[in-house]
């Protein structure tokens, strides 16, 4: 006779960087049901966005998420640019692509480190985060800050990257790639420990991923080739882009998608820097946002969606943000039941939950 118990997982748990509460129903050691509970870090950012002026909001949306801060800001700026009828100059679009991919590498390396840490593979965790330091240095060098870049504004970007800096960045990207080749890639592809912990855990089939509306690496790990970068926003049309897809649908596939995307992002960054046209980076924005629009970007975790409504004044009437984690949380209901209690941390982490972002 199996014993049924309810075990609270989170909101405080060593593998969770941010608070989400999972109410796990267990039969002996096997999970049979799960109820995700959110609402621990609500900060009222959407309301604050209505009270600030639309220009000040760029600094607010930089702070929606601490990891993908630039892409939030970029999505917001792209939306307001549609409402005010301006277009970012081509050089600014290429710089946005560069910084967007930089945040993606930063986020993916952070997550790959956390995955290693959650398996107890401390040395790999340290190695990956050591490589991430190069990314943070590039961010500090080009934007003036390690994490909160604050470089995107309505009408373009605030800082330009000169030729000397491009050379320095290229040098650091080569060093980063070499470091990842030596540490991260062989560990993820060949290490038996990681495979034993991740292969076949947290299965999500292609049909289920489509049905539950999964986005980002969670969907791409299940063979669904969706990526907003395919729509060619910023400079992705010029740079060219193919989504990274794995078909296995388990935690390992999602890990491999992120590892491959890290390499892909490094290539996109180098291409964007090489193809960047000369010219201005910021255009003057006259007038106030009017009308309503929708803006989408691909974040490290998937598609982020902004709804913006302006009424012709300095303040926006409504800003609605739907973050990728919010779309990915329902996949827990399929991935967790049937697994062992000991696999719950890895499966929970495999969608890369970003709760502060989700609750704003």
């Amino acid at each position, binding site marked *: 006779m199996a014993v049924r118990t309810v075990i609270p997982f989170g909101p405080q748990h060593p593998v969770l960087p941010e608070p989400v509460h999972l109410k796990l129903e267990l039969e002996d050691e096997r999970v049979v049901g799960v109820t995700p509970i959110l609402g621990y870090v609500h900060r009222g950012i959407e309301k604050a966005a209505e009270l*600030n002026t639309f*220009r*000040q909001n760029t*600094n*607010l949306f930089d702070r929606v998420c601490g990891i993908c801060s630039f892409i939030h800001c970029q999505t917001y700026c792209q939306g307001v640019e549609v409402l005010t009828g301006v277009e970012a100059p081509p050089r600014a679009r290429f710089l946005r692509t560069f910084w967007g991919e930089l945040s993606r590498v930063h986020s993916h390396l952070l997550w790959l480190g956390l995955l290693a840490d959650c398996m107890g593979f401390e040395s790999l965790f340290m*190695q990956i985060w*050591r490589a991430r*330091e190069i990314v943070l*240095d590039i961010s*500090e*060098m080009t934007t*003036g*800050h390690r994490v*909160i870049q*604050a470089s995107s504004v309505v009408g373009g970007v*605030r*800082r330009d990257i000169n030729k000397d800096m491009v050379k320095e960045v290229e040098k650091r990207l080569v060093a980063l790639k070499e470091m990842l080749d*030596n*540490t991260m890639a*062989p*560990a993820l592809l*060949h*290490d038996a420990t990681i495979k034993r912990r991740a292969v076949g855990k947290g299965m999500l089939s292609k049909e289920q991923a489509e049905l539950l509306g999964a986005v980002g690496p969670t969907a791409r790990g299940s063979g669904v080739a969706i990526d907003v970068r395919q729509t060619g926003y910023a400079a992705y049309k010029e740079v060219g882009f193919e989504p990274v897809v794995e078909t296995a649908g388990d935690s390992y596939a999602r890990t491999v998608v992120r590892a491959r995307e890290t390499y892909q992002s490094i290539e996109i960054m180098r291409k964007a820097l090489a193809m960047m046209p000369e010219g201005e980076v910021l255009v003057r924005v006259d007038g106030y946002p009017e009308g309503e629009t929708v803006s989408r970007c691909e974040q490290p975790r998937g598609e982020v969606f902004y709804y913006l409504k302006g009424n012709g004044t300095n303040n926006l009437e409504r800003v609605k943000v739907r973050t990728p984690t919010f779309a990915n949380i329902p996949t827990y209901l399929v991935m967790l039941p049937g697994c062992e209690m000991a696999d719950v941390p890895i499966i929970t982490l495999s969608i890369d939950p970003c709760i502060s972002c989700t609750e704003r």
Partner: protein
Amino acid sequence: MPWMFPTIMKNLFSRPATRRYPFKDIREPFPGYRGKIYLDPNKCDLCGDCARVCPADAIEVSLENRQWKYDPFKCIYCGTCVEVCPPQALRQDKYYAKPAAVKATETISVPV
């Protein structure tokens, strides 16, 4: 695990990757790092543009008392005020404000 050996040997004979902050080996911030804001009172004309654009309400400008008030603990170091300042009286340092026991506001009197 043969792939680990080069990394292990390299790490064994190299310096630690971390820095002993705040004691020594602190890396200089890159040029252009966004740090604390400083005002040159001789250039300031108290127009108040910095206070208007500040997203964190960290700057207060009083024309009657001819004072410029700055709260480094409210400041988010975005540097927007430095960009908009018409007489270019503001300057951004590459070091951020040090931790302190008391959150003090800086007040600078602007000469006539």
